[in-house]
């Protein structure tokens, strides 16, 4: 089941939440809508679900080439998972999952035995079968979210929509659940869209990432594409830490601070004012100069608790800089706060402005 929205806008009062957005999600794909809060990602998800109506005059919303814009949310066949679970607190886990089956019209409603079997099967899928009789307040956050997922799946939706599904959970549970969601998707192959503001989550779980910003889509691509080949400055900034420099581009060469480097292999050609972006792990640190162009800097702080050692540096031009190097390299160099180092960007990205 594919999803397609064309030229959708949404205004709340004077705030433009979505500005002429189009999106296609292929059958069986798991797509992440990634962006900061207020970027319109949740609004887009809610419009797909039918919980929100787009501004009139926009294009259609299609499920498998079939227009669903006029259909009420209850008739669209979507499974929706809310950030704060939205479980029915007066119903047990079993009854929560059974809800969608029990409200079906008599002619379509499965028999009690079928409902029972189906609910237990779903609870096994989310590994909660032994808690079927509990009430939502007796569950942890991660368990509640899995109940919410089982409940959404019970009606055999055509598409699964998840709004910040792990947003209210703590870091460890969050990591477990997102790996679990990926495995579940590989098992079910249901067309799914989830919203998140956590770039790690989007990059790890999704087949494709859609980066949103101020009501528009900045870039769409595989996690690899958006991370390694960001199309805009915003995407570069949003997906992980980055060092920024003001630069000038002239005759195919980029000048910033005391450095002059060849213009990298970018699609866009820039002349004049530009900004240079360097990821913290895209630099080489040396204690001695070896003739290659490098920035001279002083170590301000060392964070060595982690897989990589993170160095906070200050350049001769008094600019703050962050670098990440391996633990081994860190040990061989004998660095500490105050040490003098030479920073050589291995990989830079240049945008106009």
């Amino acid at each position, binding site marked *: 089941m594919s999803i397609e929205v064309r030229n959708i806008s949404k205004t709340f009062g004077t705030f433009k939440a979505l500005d002429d957005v189009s999106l296609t999600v292929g059958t069986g794909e798991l797509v992440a809508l990634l962006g900061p809060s207020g970027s319109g990602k949740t609004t887009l998800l809610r419009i797909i679900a039918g919980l929100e109506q787009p501004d009139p005059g926009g294009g259609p919303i299609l499920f498998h080439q079939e227009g669903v814009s006029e259909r009420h949310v209850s008739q669209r066949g979507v*499974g929706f998972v*809310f950030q704060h679970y939205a479980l*029915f607190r007066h*119903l047990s886990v079993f009854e929560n999952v059974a809800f*969608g089956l029990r409200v079906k019209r008599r002619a379509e409603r499965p028999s009690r035995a079928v409902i029972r079997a189906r609910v237990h099967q779903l609870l096994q899928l989310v590994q909660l079968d032994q808690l079927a009789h509990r009430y939502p*307040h007796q569950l942890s956050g991660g368990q509640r979210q899995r109940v919410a997922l089982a409940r959404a799946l019970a009606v055999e939706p055509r598409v699964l929509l998840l709004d910040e599904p792990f947003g209210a959970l703590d870091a460890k549970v969050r990591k477990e659940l997102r790996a679990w969601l990926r495995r579940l998707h590989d098992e079910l192959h249901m067309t799914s869209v989830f919203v998140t503001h956590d770039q790690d989550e989007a990059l790890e779980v999704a087949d494709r990432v859609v980066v949103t910003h101020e009501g528009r889509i900045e870039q769409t691509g595989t996690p690899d594409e958006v991370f390694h080949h960001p199309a805009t400055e915003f995407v570069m900034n949003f997906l992980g830490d980055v060092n920024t420099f003001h630069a000038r581009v002239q005759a195919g060469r980029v000048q910033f601070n005391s450095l002059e480097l060849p213009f990298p292999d970018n699609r866009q050609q820039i002349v004049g004012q530009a900004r240079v972006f360097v990821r913290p792990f895209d630099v080489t640190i040396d204690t001695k100069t070896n003739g290659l162009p490098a920035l001279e800097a002083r170590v301000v702080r060392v964070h060595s608790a982690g897989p990589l050692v993170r160095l906070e540096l200050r350049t001769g031009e008094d600019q703050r800089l962050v670098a990440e190097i391996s633990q081994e390299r860190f040990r061989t160099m004998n660095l500490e706060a105050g040490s003098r180092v030479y920073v050589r960007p291995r990989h830079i990205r240049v945008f106009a402005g």
Partner: protein
Amino acid sequence: MRTFTRMLSPRLWVRTPRVLPGFGLSMGLTLLSMTLLVLIPLGGLILFTATRMTLVEFWEQAIVEPRVLAAYRLSFGASFLAALLNAVFGFLVAWVLVRYPFWGQRFVDALVDLPFALPTAVSGIALTTLYAPTGWIGRWLAPWGLQIAYAWPGIVIALTLIGLPFVVRMVQPALEQLEEELEEAAASLGATRWQTFYRVILPTILPSLLTGFTMAFARAVGEFGSIYFIAGNMPYRTEIAPLLILIRLEQFDYVGATAIGVVMLLAAFALLLIINLLQWWSGRYRL
């Protein structure tokens, strides 16, 4: 049951340091005020009856006597009906006030509390004027043979009026706290509006609704002022139990008056207990 075991558990009596001390003082004052205001007057009522009446006399004069029995039936029946009406219409008022912002909302919201402040005799007289067979509303109903004032429907209307604020004020905060996401979740699972209402919204706010119902009912059972004017006070027909107490007092039959009082007290207590159990049951899924 849980509060009961908690009462018995020794934890309450172990001195645990708290941010706000003063359990002893506040508990003492609570017991004192409850004793002075509730326990002594009500206990005295029972004691007065018990020392001046045999059980057989009590049974014959205060329970099975036809006029008294009719008064009980009217008092509790009309109060129950009024509380039921309040549960329905009070819920509607609360729903409208919470869900739909409209012009004059604050005004309507303030209007809800008016029955609390109005002397009930005033509302009784006002209702009587309206619903009497010659009144503004009564005159249109009289040709159909519908008598409101001086009949039991009038009593129900008066009791509904004075009990309305309880349901509205109990249900309003519960509705305000109800997350819209619950309704959206139900809708996304294919529930119709009606199914969303009775399977999700109603059970979630049921404890508050029952509390409002209980308070409206309890208030109605004790009401006297407004009924005095609208009921017509005909023995066996429109005479409520509190009025019968007054009549007994005027005949200097103090024992007979207190005996009716005791029955009212016990019946009210039993009913409130049942409703409280029901309320506990409906809220069992809460922490």
